[in-house]
């Protein structure tokens, strides 16, 4: 798993280096694409996401929190955030249980960045959402909440 992460980071930094120079040859783009973890993003449940990332099964933890509204007025844009109060967070993941593919986003954090990120996701229906924190010591922790997606507008 460590090897995989290092490789991921190396690929990413090569790509960003080239981009910084204003150059992104096709080969570098392909390299960046190769680093994309398709298996994780195609997984249908949290267990399979973890398997694809070479991580152990996540344990529930009050040190991790998932931020989102109780009700989303529209499933096309649902604000979601993940945070962890423990030191040594390497990755934060956002997952939506009932989406066609469970994993929405995976953030790789350096020491300079707080383990507290936010983005917005699409939700096809009301569902549990998860925040997963992967720590340097190998621990994998998660928090969950339910978000209700309502039907809005005139429906026509």
């Amino acid at each position: 798993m460590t090897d995989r992460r290092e490789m991921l980071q190396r690929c990413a930094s090569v790509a960003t280096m080239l981009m910084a120079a204003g150059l992104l040859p096709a080969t570098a783009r392909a390299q960046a694409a190769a680093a994309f973890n398709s298996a994780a993003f195609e997984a249908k449940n949290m267990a399979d996401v973890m398997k694809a990332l070479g991580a152990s099964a996540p344990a529930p933890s009050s040190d991790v929190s998932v931020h989102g509204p109780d009700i989303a007025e529209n499933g096309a844009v649902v604000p979601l955030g993940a945070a962890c109060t423990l030191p040594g967070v390497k990755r934060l993941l956002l997952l939506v249980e009932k989406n066609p593919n469970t994993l929405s986003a995976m953030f790789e954090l350096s020491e300079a960045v707080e383990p507290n990120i936010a983005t917005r996701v699409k939700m096809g229906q009301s569902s549990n959402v998860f925040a997963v924190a992967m720590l340097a010591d190998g621990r994998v922790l998660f928090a969950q909440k339910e978000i209700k997606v309502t039907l809005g507008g005139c429906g026509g």
Partner: protein
Amino acid sequence: MKAQRGLGGAALRALAAVLAAAVCSVAWAQGTQATQAKSTADGIAEYRAMLADGNPAELFEAKGEALWKTARGPKHATLQACDLGKGPGVVKGAFVELPRYFADTGRVQDLESRLLSCMQTLQGFNAAEIAATPFGKGEQAGIDALTAWISSESRGMKMNLPQSDVHEKAAYEVGKRLFFFRGGPMDFSCATCHGADGKRVRLQDLPNLTKNPGDGIGFAAWPAYRVSNGQLWSMQHRLNDCYRQQRFPYPGYASDATIALSVYMGVNAHGAESIAPALKR
């Protein structure tokens, strides 16, 4: 980068809604509908507050500003000489005074129809062709972006449509009649949904547009980024979709009826603070 423009207002309103809901919940012995509606309202207010910071309309504002300043069209000219009502090139404050009467075209014009005129006279585009283009395509996408930027240049200002000219007064009266005009298989008029206070369709609040519905509500919120489809909608697009849901026939882009309706709503909203381009469901 401008700091958090227009965000504070939306967040504050959402907070106010949460507080109001909390106060109301003390007196909750009002039956199932009232209590359930309140808790749903809380949830929706929370959702909107979370989205307030980071309105993708900003992406369209940036695009619109660039378009305004780019030499384009058969005449290879920018729009910087376009008179939006406050003199050629004056953008700040123009939005909150539109629609208004323009002597050069002899028409009461809203922002979209005025942009069509400028694109035709200054840049050499064919206005009728653009008006017939589907929403979001070709030059229509450009107009959406332009309305996002131009409205943002009046953010925080109060709606102040002129009514001194007889054309403007006539347009208001026509707009009022159109607002109450019932038709189609469902007997709907604009007033069916927007003629009373405190109504909703599904979970969406319906502003009462027969009066000033308040700062940043109704006429003072469009153009807006629509979360449901990720599109930036100008008022023309908003009205078009209202008429679709009214089961009316198709209103022409920048047609007299749509402009007259805007005059009616805009004059009613006199004094309301504009938050456009806002964020909508």
